[in-house]
C-alpha cells in the first residue's frame, strides 16, 4: 500500500511539473501585466522600470529558469499586485476554499447517499420521482442565479441570514447551500443508478434469504458495494470545488482560491496563478490518492 502511494505521488509529481510548465508559458501568452498594473497614462520610462523590476524583459526561458530555481528553494515568487509572497496569498485563500469544499462535500455525501439509496430501493415510486425531480431542477439552474435569488429571499425579504461575507455559522448557510445543489443532484443520480444495479445482485438475495431487514440490506450490504462509482464521481465533484467555487465565492464575498484565481488571471498576476494552480493541483492529487485508498478500504478484492 505504501509502495502504491509512493508510486502515485511520483506520477502526480510528473503531472504537477507538466502543469507548471504548461501554465507558466501559456499565461504569458495572455499579455503583459505591466499594462494592467500601471495606469493607462503611465510613461514609457515607468513601464520600462516596472518590467525591469519584475524581470519581464528577460527572455521567457530565462524567466522560467529563474522561476524553477526559486521554486526549488520553495520560493513561489511574489504577487505583483499584492507585493507579498504569492504562496501566502494562495494559502490564505485556500483555507477558505478547503473549508467550503469539505463542508459542502460532507453534506452532499451523506444526503446524496441516503436519499439516492432510498430512491433506488423505491425506484419508480413517488419518493424516487420527487427526489429526482427536485434534484434535477436544482442541478439545472445556473448557480449565480440561485445565489442571487437566495440572497433576495432569505436575507432581504425574510431577513434570516446574512447576505454575504464571513463570520459565524450563519454565514456559511447560503454559500454551502448554493454549492451543494449541483453535486448533490448529480451524485444522487449516480448513487441511485449504482444502487439499483447492486440491489439486484445475488448477495442481496442471500441476505434476504437470511432474513436480514431492509435497512441493513440497503445501507450495509448493498451500499458499500455500490460506492465505488459513487466515490469516483464524488472525487470529480470535490476536485471541481477545490479548484474554486468562483461564482459562489464572487457573489458571497468568500475570500477563496477561486475568486483569487480569477482576479489573478484578470490581473495577469502570474506568480499567484501558478502558486494557486500548484496548491489546488496538489490538493486534487492528494484527494485522488485518498480516493484510491478509499477503493482499497471499500473493496477487499482490490487489496490483493
Amino acid at each position: 500500500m505504501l509502495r502504491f502511494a509512493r508510486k502515485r505521488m511520483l506520477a502526480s509529481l510528473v503531472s504537477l511539473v507538466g502543469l507548471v510548465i504548461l501554465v507558466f508559458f501559456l499565461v504569458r501568452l495572455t499579455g503583459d501585466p505591466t499594462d494592467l498594473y500601471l495606469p493607462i497614462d503611465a510613461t514609457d520610462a515607468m513601464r520600462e522600470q516596472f518590467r525591469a523590476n519584475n524581470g519581464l524583459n528577460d527572455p521567457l526561458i530565462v524567466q522560467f529558469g529563474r522561476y524553477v530555481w526559486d521554486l526549488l528553494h520553495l520560493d513561489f515568487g511574489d504577487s505583483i499586485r499584492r507585493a507579498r509572497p504569492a504562496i501566502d496569498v494562495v494559502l490564505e485563500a485556500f483555507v477558505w476554499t478547503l473549508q467550503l469544499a469539505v463542508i459542502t462535500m460532507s453534506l452532499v455525501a451523506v444526503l446524496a447517499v441516503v436519499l439516492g439509496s432510498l430512491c433506488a430501493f423505491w425506484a419508480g415510486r413517488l419518493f424516487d420521482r420527487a427526489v429526482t425531480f427536485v434534484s434535477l431542477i436544482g442541478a439545472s439552474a445556473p448557480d449565480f442565479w440561485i445565489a442571487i435569488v437566495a440572497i433576495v429571499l432569505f436575507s432581504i425579504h425574510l431577513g434570516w441570514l446574512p447576505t454575504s461575507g464571513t463570520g459565524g455559522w450563519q454565514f456559511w448557510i447560503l454559500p454551502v447551500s448554493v454549492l451543494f445543489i449541483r453535486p448533490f443532484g448529480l451524485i444522487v443520480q449516480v448513487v441511485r443508478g449504482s444502487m439499483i444495479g447492486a440491489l439486484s445482485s445475488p448477495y442481496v438475495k442471500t441476505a434476504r434469504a437470511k432474513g436480514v431487514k431492509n435497512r441493513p440490506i440497503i445501507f450495509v450490504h448493498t451500499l458499500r458495494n455500490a460506492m465505488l462509482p459513487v466515490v469516483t464521481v464524488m472525487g470529480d465533484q470535490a476536485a471541481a470545488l477545490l479548484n474554486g467555487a468562483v461564482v459562489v465565492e464572487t457573489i458571497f464575498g468568500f475570500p477563496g482560491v477561486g475568486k483569487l484565481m480569477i482576479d489573478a488571471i484578470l490581473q495577469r498576476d502570474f506568480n499567484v496563478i501558478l502558486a494557486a494552480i500548484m496548491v489546488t493541483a496538489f490538493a486534487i492529487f492528494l484527494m485522488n490518492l485518498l480516493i484510491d485508498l478509499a477503493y482499497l478500504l471499500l473493496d477487499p478484492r482490490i487489496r490483493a
Partner: protein
Amino acid sequence: MKGMSLVLAALLASTAGAFAQANTDVTIVLGEELDLVEPCMATRSNIGRVILENISETLTELDMKNGGQVAGRLAESWEDQGNGTWRFKLRPNVKFSDGTAFDAEDVKHSLERATSPDISCESSRYFGDTKLSASVVDPTTVDIKAEPAQPILPLLMSVLTIVPAETPIEFTRQPVGTGPYVLSSWTPGQSIVLDRRADYWGAAPAVTKATYVFRSDSAVRAAMVQAGEADLAPSISVLDATNPATDFSYPNSETMYLRIDTSVPPMNDKRVRQALNMAIDRAAFIGSLLPEGTEPAVAIVPPTTLGWNPDIKVPEFDPEGAKKLLEEAKADGVPVDTPIELIGRTDNYPNATEVNEALQAMLQDAGFTVNLRMLEVAEQEKLYSKPYLEGRPPQLLSVLHDNAKGDPVFSAFFKYHSDGRQSGISDPKVDDLITRATAATGEERAKLWSELFATVHDEVVADVLLFHMVGFARVAERISFQPTIATNSQLQLSEIGFKN
C-alpha cells in the same frame, strides 16, 4: 411550517446582534478589494477610497464642495518661487499615528520614495516626465522644484501621500500617516478596519470606527445596506439603485467616449467622423440604459475641470445628415463601407454590453457597417494604447476616461497629443495648444484649454464624446453622506455624519 420559520427566525435573531454595531461605527462595502494598503498607491481608486485622507494625508487637496479649488491640507500655504520652485509652509503640530512629528523631512522622503525607481509607486504617474526634487528649508518649510517648471505643482501635491521619513522604500503593509484614522486590522480578502485616532491635528470626525468589506457583486452590496449589514455602498449599479430614500447619484468623473484612430481609412475623413457623431441619439440613453443625471459630453473631462468650454454644442442627432455625409465621402472615394469594429469592455460599467449594442444599432441605422466585439480589460488595453497593431481595421474603442483632478493636463496629452499613448489624432495645432496650456498658469491656462477642447471637438472631430457618467451610492438611513465627484477615488470618513 410557520412555527418552524419562527423558531428559525428566533435562532437567527439571537445571533444577529453580533453584527449590529455601536452607533458611531460604520461598515462600508466596496466592490473591489484592496490588494495593497501602500500610501504611494493611493491614487489607485480601490486603495485611495480607504486610505486617502483617512490614513494618509497630502499637502494639498481638491475641494470638490467648493468648485474644485486646490486647498491646503498638510500645507498651510504655498507660493511660486519662480524657476519651477514652489515653497510650501507646512502645518505645525501634526503627528503621525506612530507618534512621530510631521516635518519637512517627511515631505522630502515621501517625494523621493514615491518617485524612486525601486518601487513602482503609482502616484508618480501624475508627475509625468517632470522631475521633482524637494529641499528642506526648515522643519515647517519645504521647497519643491520641478524640471521643467510645473504651473500646477500645488495640484500635483494632492496625490503625494505623506509618510514618515523612516518609511523604507518598499511596499508597506502597516501604513503610517497623519490622517484621522489608523489601520487597526487588515484581513486580506475579508475586511479592513480603521479606528479613529485621538491625537489627530484637526477636528475629530464623527465616525469612530470604519469596517470595509468587499463584494464584487453590486446586487449584494446594495442588499447589504438594505439588510443593515452595511451603512454605505459608495458604488452600486444603477439597476440596484431602486430606493430613492437611500440611493444617491453623483457624477463620478468618468467620461465615456469612442476613441477613433484617425490614421485608418475611412476614419481619416472628417465627414465620416462627423457622421459618427451625428448618428448617435445621446438623449435616448439617458434615463434608459444610463441613469438620469448622466450628461452628454462635449469634452473628455468633466465640467468641473479647468477650462471647461460651455460654448461647445452637443452634436445633433441626425441619422439622415449622417447618411448624407457618408454618401458625400463615398463619392470622393472614401471606403465608407469598410466594416468598423466597435470594441467594448465587458463590465466596464453597469450595462456596458447593452450600451455598446445600442451604439452599434444606432451606427448601423445611419449606414455604417459595425461589428461589435466585447473584450476583457487586458485585451482592450492592448488595442487602446500605442503601439497600435499593424494592419488594424478601422476601430472605435468604447472606453471611459476618468479625470477627477480638476485640470485637463492629466488627460490632454495622453488622449490628443501626437505622442500621446492613447491618442488617435496627429494634429500640429492640437499639439501646440497642449504644450502651451501645460506650461501656462491662471487665466491663460484656462483659455488655452478651452480652445483645445473646441478645436478637438469641432475642428478636428477627434472622437465621439458621449457621456459624463454618474455613479450611485446607497447610504443607510442612519448616516448622512453626500457622494461627490471625488467619491470614486477617495472617501473621507470625516464627511460621514449620523442622523441622530
